[in-house]
């Protein structure tokens, strides 16, 4: 499963906010850390606000704050905001349909395992895995 750049940016952002739930974190701080434009990040964050995962606070000292339940929010909950996971293989020409169906069945099996895993990993567990309640390390996002 290959995640889009926006999805990864959303996951990194959620982890940043969830690691410091009592703070209002400026979007510019996240943008700078992950080398993204504030404009691009704003679109991602607005989706997270709509999903009530983070809340935005305007004005001096404002920013974004985590308002989700880190022990219940899973990676999949965030990913589905940005990815269409219902994609199927395109319809094949008729002579290849049996082959296509067999291949699609294997790919579906793989996707189901991936979805079950992503649906079982909570933000709290991932923060625990990272090994601290501090800041996630910045990673280069794909171009």
């Amino acid at each position, binding site marked *: 499963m290959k995640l889009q750049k926006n999805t990864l940016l959303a996951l990194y952002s959620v982890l940043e906010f969830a690691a410091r739930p009592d703070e209002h974190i400026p979007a510019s701080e996240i943008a700078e850390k992950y080398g993204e434009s504030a404009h691009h990040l704003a679109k991602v964050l607005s989706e997270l606000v709509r999903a009530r995962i983070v809340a935005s606070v305007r004005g001096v000292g404002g920013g974004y704050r985590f308002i989700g339940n880190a*022990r*219940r929010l*899973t990676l*999949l909950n965030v990913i589905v905001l940005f990815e269409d996971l219902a994609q199927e293989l395109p319809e094949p020409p008729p002579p290849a349909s049996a082959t296509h169906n067999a291949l699609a069945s294997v790919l579906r099996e793989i996707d*189901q*395992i991936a979805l*079950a*895993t992503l*649906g*079982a*990993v*909570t933000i*709290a*567990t991932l923060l*625990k895995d990272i090994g601290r309640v501090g800041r996630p390390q910045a990673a280069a996002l794909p171009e």
Partner: protein
Amino acid sequence: MPAVVALDATVTGLHKAAYWQRVYRRYGVNGQGQRHFLVAEHEGRVCGFAIGEVRDWEFGAPPCGWLFAIDVMPSARQAGVGGRLLGELAERFRREGVDTLRTMTASGNSLIQSFFRSQGMRAGHLLPLEMDIAAPADAEAAVARKARR
């Protein structure tokens, strides 16, 4: 046992008294050394349980501890009860000389999977596989059963 049966019925919606009596005979009454039936109590009432056993060379794997069932009353969750049950079971397995704890869950049960992952469990070396073996006449019913899972 009635408390465990009631707890399971609350969580699963199925009342399985006969099944639990068999489990109790195997893991409770006759549990010796490597079989464990643990219950957690709060103010004198059962609020959770865990059942496990050390098994040798199942599926070709060296001896390890298997967790067969664990549950906590919904009203007692997020208070560390499940973690303490799992921790106690792991400690008992450790004392019996094994260094791996395994379990299996329904692939769609993200709640219990989230719990296991929060406790440090990850995908392991065993991969569960299954197939429908219903007679052709029952195949349609088998497909329907699978769709309901």
